[in-house]
């Protein structure tokens, strides 16, 4: 039976096998596995706009951490993007998060176990494909597969989990957390590779909710910016520059990085930071990409 969109994209054995192959990859090889585990980007090809929709506000895409494996010899050819998440039980840390209610480590582990499946379902639903052209290997199409396993070590992102109950009513807590943000709000701090997730948010997969919260945050963990259009906050969406130089501006939409009405990642542009990271990995391995399309 084939794997569904919510299933792990690689078994531990398959992942180890790809890593072993990557260890013996040679420069310019067209059938090898290329791998980079660490910080990717930023590409500088994404620009957030002010509310007027034409003036950049100075914010670009973020650098992000992930393990990216380019499996050129597989059938199908696949690019695996693995973002390892470490859950920190901060539900009892009322010094940092004053409105949180305590959960045991066991309960936390059970709750956060829903996150990888929610992220896989949202990000592998399309699925994304990258058509890569270079002078050595010609034109090859790769399926992009995203995974975000919960780990206890070697993590890419460390996430404080809080349990701020009245977030269910969208009040997001009575008090600020130690970073000056309402204690029930979830966010990613991109330059710190840290974040805070609220288990009681009614959009969280950990709460049996509508499940778009963690997939949206995963977008930030691969370098994407919010696409909201909001005059009051002087935000007017994001401009994306594709490999062929095409630029598109997106604001006031219901997509996953917008208002989240669409709960899966669908627009081609959401794979752009990964595409630029893949180009960089190819370059490191002696292959210069001359064309790249996202489908």
């Amino acid at each position, binding site marked *: 039976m084939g794997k569904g969109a919510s299933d792990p994209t690689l078994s531990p054995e398959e992942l180890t096998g790809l890593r072993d192959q990557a260890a013996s990859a040679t420069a310019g090889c067209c059938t090898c596995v290329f791998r980079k585990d660490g910080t990717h980007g930023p590409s500088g090809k994404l620009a957030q706009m002010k509310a007027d929709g034409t003036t950049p506000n100075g914010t670009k895409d973020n650098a992000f951490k992930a393990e990216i494996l380019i499996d050129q010899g597989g059938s199908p050819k696949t690019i695996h993007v693995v973002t390892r998440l470490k859950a920190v039980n901060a539900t009892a840390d009322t010094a940092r998060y004053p409105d949180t209610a305590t959960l045991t480590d066991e309960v936390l582990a059970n709750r956060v176990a829903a996150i990888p499946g929610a992220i896989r379902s949202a990000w592998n639903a399309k699925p994304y494909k990258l058509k890569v052209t270079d002078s050595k290997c010609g034109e090859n199409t790769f399926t992009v597969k995203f995974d975000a396993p919960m780990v206890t070590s070697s993590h890419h992102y460390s996430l404080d989990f809080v349990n701020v109950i009245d977030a269910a009513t969208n009040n997001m807590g009575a008090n600020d957390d130690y*970073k000056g*943000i309402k204690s029930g709000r979830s*966010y990613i701090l991109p330059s710190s590779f840290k974040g805070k997730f609220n288990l009681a948010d009614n959009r969280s997969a950990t709460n049996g909710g509508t499940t778009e919260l963690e997939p949206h945050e995963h977008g930030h963990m691969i370098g994407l910016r919010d696409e909201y259009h909001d005059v009051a*906050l002087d935000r007017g969406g994001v401009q994306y520059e594709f490999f062929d130089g095409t630029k598109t501006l997106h604001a006031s939409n219901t997509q996953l990085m917008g208002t989240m009405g669409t709960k899966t990642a669908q627009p081609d542009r959401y794979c752009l930071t990964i595409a630029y990271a893949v180009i960089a990995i190819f370059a490191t391995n002696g292959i210069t990409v001359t064309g790249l399309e996202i489908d």
Partner: protein
Amino acid sequence: MIEGLKKHHTQTCGPVEVSTYFSPQSSLANFRDTNADPFQYRIVFEIINASGPAGQRVQFQPPTPLAFFFHISLQSSDGKFHDLTEGQIDPHHTGKPTPRDVAFAAKDDVFYSQISYAAFATIAPLDAMREGLYRLSLAPFPIVSIDGKECLYNTPPMDIKVIDGL
């Protein structure tokens, strides 16, 4: 007087007196949010019901989320301060500034609100934070409203020496 903190600015807002205290020195760990105690180094806002009656109420606006209020600069070798401010969290995730009601049970009662230096990781990139002299600038803002009348709080910049291993 708040132990370990420097009194920086005081302003009278009708019946209440508003003061800012801060730690003039900080560990790099606290700035980078790796300290065990996030509030070891901090800014504190103190509101004293100096001349109001028992039951005096004010609307207090803490200067949070920081992206709406603060700028942070680092002094370079030429002595000039260079702005490091770069929003790390989109305002949709931080939410907008939200005032809160504060009620004083008696005259001379005191209310405190504090901000950890770890919070500056929300407005500056972590890799820009190193040892040195930082200048925190807080834009004038209505820190309290009393009976609908806003009091604009105008705090001078705060200089903070950040030391690794403090």
